[in-house]
């Protein structure tokens, strides 16, 4: 925890610009000078004090005016926390921090609140918009909701996901992307730099939801997310996790959850003014789903919880640098049903203290939405003595369900063996479909549009011509259901494949499935990760519904809350599928030398024996053998034969008795083939021995 004097210095260093500080210093010296002069004139001390206070007041006022003037272009930071009990006895906590840097002509060299690292990133790589998320666990679309802004923005695929849009010429986008991945990798202690290689990222055109040709998307499903990634993320906050809402982030309790996703969204805001650069908006969110320790005996009563029981910590005071720091509690479903008719003016207490549940603190404001109630708490009043510890106690069993996306998506692998297989994406109708379906009527036909965006690593060699679409378990031709498809096939070891398709399904659809076959690739021995037999991950597919948008519709006028205004905006309904694990065949990693030597032996055998056959001269060999034999039998015979040869002349020399020659010929060729056989035998024995020795 920080001490008060630390706050002071923090305040001093961060909040006041150098110009202001100079101004204050000048004002102070002016006051001292004036008081000196007054003393010299030996005026009445009371009078003098009066004049002095007047001057001080004047100066202070001028300072105040300067501050007020500057505040238009000052950086703003706000911290918010949304708590939401989930139907499956869990609690969702969504931390939202927003940091805005106004457009300035100083090119963001100087910042008071805004993290310098991020602004440098934006300046250097000309990032227009970027989102980076670290996720562990999978969002449960059935129980935790799939049709609200919270889930469509914060339900992220496992591991690291990064997308960025750049403001550079088309030819430089890839370079910027590569540099950005390296910078982020260093900034967040993660292996984001693996996204640098062209085999791991893709350039979606329309399937991702953002239509831009300068967009790059990549994800690392294998990346493990832990405190080492959270700490640098917290460092970007002005109060870090020392104070304010972020003080709740107790590492053990955060990582004990079922799901946690830390997200960093960054977008540049064009100022529109000449000469001024663009402002940056940095949005940092952390979404955790926690299981409160159930104290109540009854099984069907939702567990009661408080902040201290969930996180093991309390909120003690706000982050003084934050413009606003609020805590919201969202109650969905059943409670709102009964409270709909309650008059907020007269029976305000009933909203937070009724027969069904009770809040430990009185909300500062209650906001009503169509399906839910939002209780707003200001944590300004909390202090060391009186910490802000919001609690929810359930008295009666209650049941409700979250709104779901029109189609629930799952993805799975088919086939066995390490040679080939098929990927299938199954879209199943959910309960909420009927409610939603009436809205999008096109050509007099009620349809649901679904975009599927999928990246395939190159070692999953997809045969796009095998794409099959089944609607309600009946195969449909592509032209009927498939409205748009964009494919960029993968190139071995060069680029990953990408598939974007838009399905147009009838509203009454019960299930739709697409399947696509693939061959598994065979990698070079160096391309396998250390644990090669675990398999390779295929990144999540993104299913989005372009005709469906999620937003919270508040009845009351909203205060200036970044979180709530974010929720009020219409956001595309999207969901990520599971990560698939594809086992690939492995070569024998211990074999390179053996393979090289054995293969080269075979080649030597080929070359040597064939050349031997070609250059062989049987006649000369026979002559040599005969001369050897002659040496043994005696010199006389040899001399005789030589004499005979001389008499007969050269051509006739080659005609000795046929029987002996054929015999020797047969002998020699048998000898050569025997040799050949022996070589093969030895090679075979060596190979066999190698197998046995390596298997052991």
């Amino acid at each position: 925890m920080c001490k008060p004097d630390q706050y002071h210095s923090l305040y001093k260093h961060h909040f006041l610009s150098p110009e202001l500080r100079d101004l204050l210093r000048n004002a102070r010296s002016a006051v001292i000078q004036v008081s000196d002069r007054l003393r010299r004139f030996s005026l009445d001390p009371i009078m003098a004090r009066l004049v002095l206070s007047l001057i001080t007041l004047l100066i202070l006022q001028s300072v105040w005016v300067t501050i007020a003037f500057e505040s238009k272009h000052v950086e703003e930071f706000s911290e918010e926390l949304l708590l939401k009990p989930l139907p499956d006895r869990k609690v969702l906590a969504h931390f939202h921090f927003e940091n805005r840097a106004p457009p300035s002509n100083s090119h963001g060299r100087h910042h008071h609140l805004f993290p310098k690292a991020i602004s440098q990133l934006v300046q250097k790589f000309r990032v227009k918009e970027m989102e980076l998320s670290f996720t562990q666990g999978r969002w449960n679309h059935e129980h935790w909701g799939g049709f609200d802004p919270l889930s469509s923005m914060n339900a992220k695929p496992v591991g690291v996901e990064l997308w960025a849009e750049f403001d550079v010429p088309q030819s430089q986008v890839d370079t910027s992307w590569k540099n950005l991945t390296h910078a982020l990798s260093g900034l967040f202690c993660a292996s984001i730099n693996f996204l640098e290689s062209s085999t791991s990222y893709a350039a979606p055109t329309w399937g991702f939801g953002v239509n831009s040709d300068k967009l790059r998307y990549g994800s690392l499903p294998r990346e493990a997310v832990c405190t080492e990634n959270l700490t640098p993320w917290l460092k970007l906050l002005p109060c870090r996790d020392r104070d304010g809402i972020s003080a709740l982030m107790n590492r053990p309790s955060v990582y004990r959850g079922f799901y946690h996703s830390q997200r960093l969204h960054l977008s540049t805001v064009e100022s529109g003014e000449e000469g001024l650069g663009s402002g940056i908006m940095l949005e940092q969110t952390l979404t955790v789903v926690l299981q409160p320790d159930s104290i109540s005996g009854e099984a069907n009563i939702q567990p009661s919880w408080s902040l201290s029981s969930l996180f093991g910590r309390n909120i003690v005071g706000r982050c003084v640098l934050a413009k606003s720091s609020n805590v919201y509690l969202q109650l969905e479903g059943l409670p709102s049903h009964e409270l709909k008719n309650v008059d907020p003016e007269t029976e305000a207490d009933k909203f937070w203290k009724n027969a069904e549940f009770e809040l430990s603190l009185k909300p500062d404001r209650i906001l009503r939405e169509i399906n839910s109630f939002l209780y707003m708490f200001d944590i300004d009043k909390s202090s060391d003595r009186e910490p802000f510890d919001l609690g929810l106690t359930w008295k009666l069993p209650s049941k409700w369900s979250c709104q779901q996306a029109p189609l629930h998506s799952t993805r799975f692998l088919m086939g066995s063996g390490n040679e080939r297989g098929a990927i299938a994406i199954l879209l199943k109708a959910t309960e909420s479909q009927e409610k939603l379906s009436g809205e999008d009527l096109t050509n007099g036909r009620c349809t649901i549009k679904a975009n599927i965006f999928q990246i395939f690593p190159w070692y999953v060699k997809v045969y796009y011509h095998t794409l099959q679409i089944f609607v309600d378990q009946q195969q449909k031709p592509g032209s009927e259901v498939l409205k748009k498809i964009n494919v960029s096939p993968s190139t071995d070891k060069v680029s990953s494949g990408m598939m974007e398709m838009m399905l147009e399904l009838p509203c009454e659809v019960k299930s739709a499935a697409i399947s696509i076959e693939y061959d598994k690739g065979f990698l070079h021995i160096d391309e396998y990760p250390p644990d090669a037999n675990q398999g390779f991950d295929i990144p999540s597919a993104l299913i989005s519904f372009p005709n469906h948008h999620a937003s919270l519709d508040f009845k009351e006028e909203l205060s200036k809350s970044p979180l709530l205004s974010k929720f009020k905006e219409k956001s595309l309904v999207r969901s990520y599928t599971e990560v698939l694990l594809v086992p690939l065949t492995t070569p024998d990693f211990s074999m390179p030398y053996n393979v090289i030597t054995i293969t080269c032996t075979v080649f030597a055998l080929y070359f040597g024996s064939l050349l031997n056959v070609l250059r062989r001269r049987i006649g000369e060999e026979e002559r040599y053998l005969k001369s050897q034999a002659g040496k043994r039998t005696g010199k006389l015979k040899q001399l005789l034969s030589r004499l005979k040869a001389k008499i007969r002349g050269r051509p006739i020399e080659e005609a000795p008795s046929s029987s002996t020659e054929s015999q020797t010929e047969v002998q020699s060729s048998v000898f050569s083939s025997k040799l050949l056989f022996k070589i093969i035998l030895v090679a075979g024995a060596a190979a066999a021995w190698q197998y046995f020795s390596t298997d052991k």
Partner: protein
Amino acid sequence: MTKDGGEMAEEQKKKPCRFWIWALASVVFRLILISFPGNLNLSSRPEVSTPLTSIRRLAEGYWLKQASMSPYAGSMYHGSPLLLSVLGPLTVQRIKGHSFLLCSLVFVIADVLSAMLLRGIGQKLQMAYGLNARLLGVLKSSRDKGILPCGDIAALVYLWNPFTIVSCVGLSTSPIENLAVILSLYGAVTRRVPLAAFGLVMATQLSLYPATLTIPIIFILGYGLDAPPLKLFLQIRSVEKEDTSTSAVSKQAKLKPNTRLPFLWKTVVHFVFWVLLWSLYLLVLCGLSLSKYGGLEEMFTRTYGFILSIEDLSPNIGVFWYFFAEVFDFFRNFFLIVFHVNILFLLLPLAIRLKHRPCFLAFIYLAICSILKSYPSVGDAALYLSLWSLFVNELTDMKFSYFLFCGYLGISLLSPVMHNLWIWRGTGNANFYFGNAIGYACFQIVFVVESVSAMLNHDRSLRKSNSNHREVEN
């Protein structure tokens, strides 16, 4: 004598009849196999379909082309764009649930055509063999029973070879490649220069390796068909001069009494002209079909570049895939060069030594290519084995034939087992399958070496019998 002749004619009548029955039976057998492709699943066997010849990849290329993308986008298709435009439309049509039925019919037709052309080559070679044997005095009568009908044998070997059947039913495009190769040889043997040039250019376009056949085809066109070495004829001529008899004079010896064989430059120039013409024509066709996409440059990098740089490391019956999956990246280029040069190195020595037997030279070249190919399949083996059977007369005393037969049989039985153990069951590792591939390479090497040595021995024995004959006469 007349009675003998009558019997012979009867037999000759019977033999083609039997040949046609067998040929028809092979076609029927193929059609039966095609009718249930799902159970066999041969098209996914690594022995049958390589990245170059797989029909699924061709279908993918055609799909990409239909989706107005380059067929070479991604690394799926690596074949010729012409094959794509011929076979591609057939892959889309489904008849009674059989997706590639029309393609299989095309492959059956290609196989039958190849067999017929082989038969034509064999008949020519048989005639040449008979003529030469008579000239050398080995055979006395023109209707000697000692000459085997090598054309029929080769055609039947081609049609009934399990390798051919498997690659035809397994929907690999190698029947068409084989057809192109055999067409070029047929054109050369029958001295139809444009046909020979067309076959050669087509085969080279489909898979790079038949380019080596240029040398044997030039030899066939320049020197004529396979014959024993010229020396023998000269010897006989000298003997005959001594005897002053003019009954049987060799044609070649009559034309030129010097020790060099006449080389028909005109035909060869004609051939080269036609090769240039056809390759220009094919390039223009390919260029037109790829003009919307990457053009010819992309085609060359994606077909020949893919063959030469061995990018795909999926298992096949060759040895390169495992070698390049294991070898250190630093040495990759070195070994690529060494292995490709291995083919080129032996072209010249073989050409010098087997100059007088160009058809046999073509067979040896094809066999060597099928050993050292980047992506070999059993379809290549089918081609060279049937070409080998064209020389049954010459290679009668080849050694290790039983050993080699058993080897080929064993490999073709073990290969699916090893593949299954490694890929599907996961109980074996890659070495099992690689050991099999090494064994196959060794058997092929022994086969080639023994064939060459048997052919050289045959020439030697001819020379010997010739001199014996003379000695007896003396």
